[in-house]
């Protein structure tokens, strides 16, 4: 039966991806749900929530709100919060409830903007998509709304700073809360004066000045669309890479000569693993992903995974000597006897380095 998961649990959904992009930006984030989605987003998909405060709210929708489509009540509640909480924007994130009742998010945005004196983002998530779709949309909307071209033009002339903007970096993709610090260190050593990790480590001011970046780095497919947008608007060139593979992992990858390898991860990280293996060995490497597989980053034989059954079939028919991915996925591979190399993917297993649990 299509859509049946017998061994795996569902991966992080689109609303978690959208919320992750906004988490550190100082806005009011309203999850348009009955409460459960907010609990999942915060309690499971957002490791920063346990140590950093963020103004995340559930709309607390009840059956009659949904049946009667009482958007006005939601906006009134949002205004109440906007009056009480210091924030520089508000965002409304969708879930299956508004999806079923066909909530008009553009109308919701207009209604909210009329009531509160803050910019509003309305992100129509469905809960049926995966986190990177929600994150991609959130990045794009964020830069469209806030990246300030006038301020950029003025400042760019005065500034000689070499700035790197990092896109696609959320705990869901990088699975390490210290990833921004590690990345900043790497690129400062390469001569950058500033490294701005949008949405993870740097706030809304960095987003507003995104046009000042000398170059953008995309570390996951979720950041690619925004990178293209920033290139179009500000002419900022971008590269796609994942410079966060550890030295110990690189050593392991050097030892895969002669092997048939399947890498299952987010596409940018998976491609980096492939490049690293190919630099030092003659291994045959295929990338597969449950998540966005961007055509421009994809090789011909790369595989878009959609069902558990297909994943099992790919592994069984591919006769891979080595699989690289989150160990959680091994639950589906009961018959697999080859080597499994674990690279955590928070969006899959909920495993995140340097996270604190409440």
């Amino acid at each position, binding site marked *: 039966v299509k859509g049946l998961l017998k061994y795996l649990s569902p991966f992080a959904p689109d609303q978690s991806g959208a919320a992750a992009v906004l988490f550190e930006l100082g806005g009011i984030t309203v*999850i348009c749900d*009955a*409460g459960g989605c907010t609990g999942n987003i915060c309690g*499971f998909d957002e490791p920063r929530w346990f140590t950093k405060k963020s103004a995340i709210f559930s709309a607390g929708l009840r059956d009659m709100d949904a049946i009667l489509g009482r958007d006005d009540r939601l906006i009134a509640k949002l205004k109440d919060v906007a009056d*009480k909480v*210091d924030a520089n924007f508000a965002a409304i994130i969708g879930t*299956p409830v508004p999806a079923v009742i066909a909530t008009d998010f553009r109308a919701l945005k207009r209604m909210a903007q009329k009531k509160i004196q803050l910019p509003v983002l309305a992100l129509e998530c469905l809960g049926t998509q995966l986190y990177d779709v929600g994150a991609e949309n959130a990045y794009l909307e964020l830069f469209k709304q806030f990246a300030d071209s006038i301020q950029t033009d003025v400042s760019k002339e005065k500034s000689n700073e070499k700035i790197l903007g990092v896109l696609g970096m959320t705990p869901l993709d990088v699975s390490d809360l210290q990833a921004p610090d590690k990345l900043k260190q790497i690129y400062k050593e390469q001569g950058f004066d500033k490294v701005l990790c949008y949405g993870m480590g740097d706030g809304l001011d960095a987003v507003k000045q995104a046009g000042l970046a000398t170059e953008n780095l995309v570390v996951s497919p979720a950041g690619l669309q925004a990178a293209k947008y920033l290139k179009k608007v500000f002419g900022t060139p971008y590269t796609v890479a994942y410079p966060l593979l550890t030295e110990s992992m690189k050593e392991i990858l050097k030892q895969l000569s002669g092997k048939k390898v399947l890498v299952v991860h987010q596409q940018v990280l998976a491609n980096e693993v492939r490049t690293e293996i190919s630099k030092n060995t003659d291994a045959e490497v295929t990338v597969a992903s449950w998540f966005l597989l961007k055509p421009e980053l994809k090789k011909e034989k790369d595989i878009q995974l959609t069902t558990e059954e297909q994943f099992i079939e790919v592994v069984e028919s591919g006769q891979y000597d080595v699989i690289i991915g989150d160990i959680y996925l091994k639950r589906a591979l009961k018959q697999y006897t080859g080597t499994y190399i674990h690279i955590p993917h928070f969006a899959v297993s909920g495993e995140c380095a340097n996270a604190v649990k*409440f």
Partner: protein
Amino acid sequence: MEKEVYYITADELAERGREAIPDELQSAKHLIYSSPATLSFNSPGAQGFGVKRAGLAIPGSVMLLVAPGCCGRNTTMLSELGGYANRFFYLLMDDTDIVTGRHLNKISKAVQEVVDSLETPPTVVMICLTCVDALLGTDMERVCRKASDYTGIPVRPCYMYALTREGRVPPMTDVRKSVYSLLEKRDRKPTTVNLLGYFAPLLDDTELYDILRQIGVKQMNEISRCQDFEAYLSMAEANFNLVLNPECRLAAEDIKKRLGIPSIELTRLYQLDKIQRQYELLGAALGKKIEDTAYYEKAKQVIDDFTNAHPNTRFAVGECVNADPFELSLALIRYGHQVTEIYGTVAPENFIYIQKIAKLSPQTRIYTNLSPTMLYYDCGKGVADITIGKDAEYYHPDCANVAWNQERQPFGYTGLIHLFEELTKALEGGMAQ
């Protein structure tokens, strides 16, 4: 701009009365703030027993969650818990399903595929549904009957409808009804009693077991102690049910209607004299004399020892606890301590305690974890020596804490004794703020 955290003192709240609970304390009147202190509200399944875990209380059962992927996300954690591996399955809904309801046509086949994948057939397949089907108005009883006919295995619905949380039948009430729905009429045994309400057993040394034995009960059934499906089915032989959690009232009513088993409700209390009184009333209802003096005396001694060692202790009490935070606070105040802050969800039924707290400790501050203003709670301003509850700990991270949210359920004198033992332990190693 206002940056004050909303709270109300006990005397102000008591004066307003149950008919005029301030909007700030009512979750339906504002957006619901999400902090780690609210996790058990927003995602009841994330810690302890939510609908998904509770739905698997029947021995040998498995669950098929029929929902968009997002609804099953935190189940990854549950699958890792002992006893739940290979018991959760998912039928993911796509964009079209959530609008057209076409997923319903796949359920019978999905159930069959799940059953076929297991070495031993399950005793029942629980179908867990979420807000989407609540809005689609799915007749799940019918869908489950159809799946049951198709597979030859009992299939039951289990509603995780967060949208109905404050409705007449909230999800945690409904799931309790679901898990007893497979019981079928049997001859009743006068010496058998069911303890209903929790999904984990009472602590082994709970005096209730001894008290029931005193009055001639030989077999005490708890669903969480049922080793197999037959043990579960034998719950239908009970002479009466003891309902230990008000969320189980509906299940008890249903059992009475279907199987003719009556019930008596007992409340989990922390006031020593009220525990004693409740046992007196239970004895009167059953026409038996209950002897509980030894338990009473022991509990009194433990409380006295604590109070002598730590007089006038200042408590902050949360709601993520195995207690009614208002009743527990009242108990602590009556034992001679201070309760400076309570983080609770105020409902009309709490006023019986709030009014008494107001008389004894009018300045006790009552907060709600769910208020948007809790974003600005400054633990530097709060005054407490010890906190009870994970939520209270969140606000006072440097304070001694007793989480008191263990799965094995405390009850009666023994629950009270264990709480004070934990408090003593925490204060000996804790730090006053």
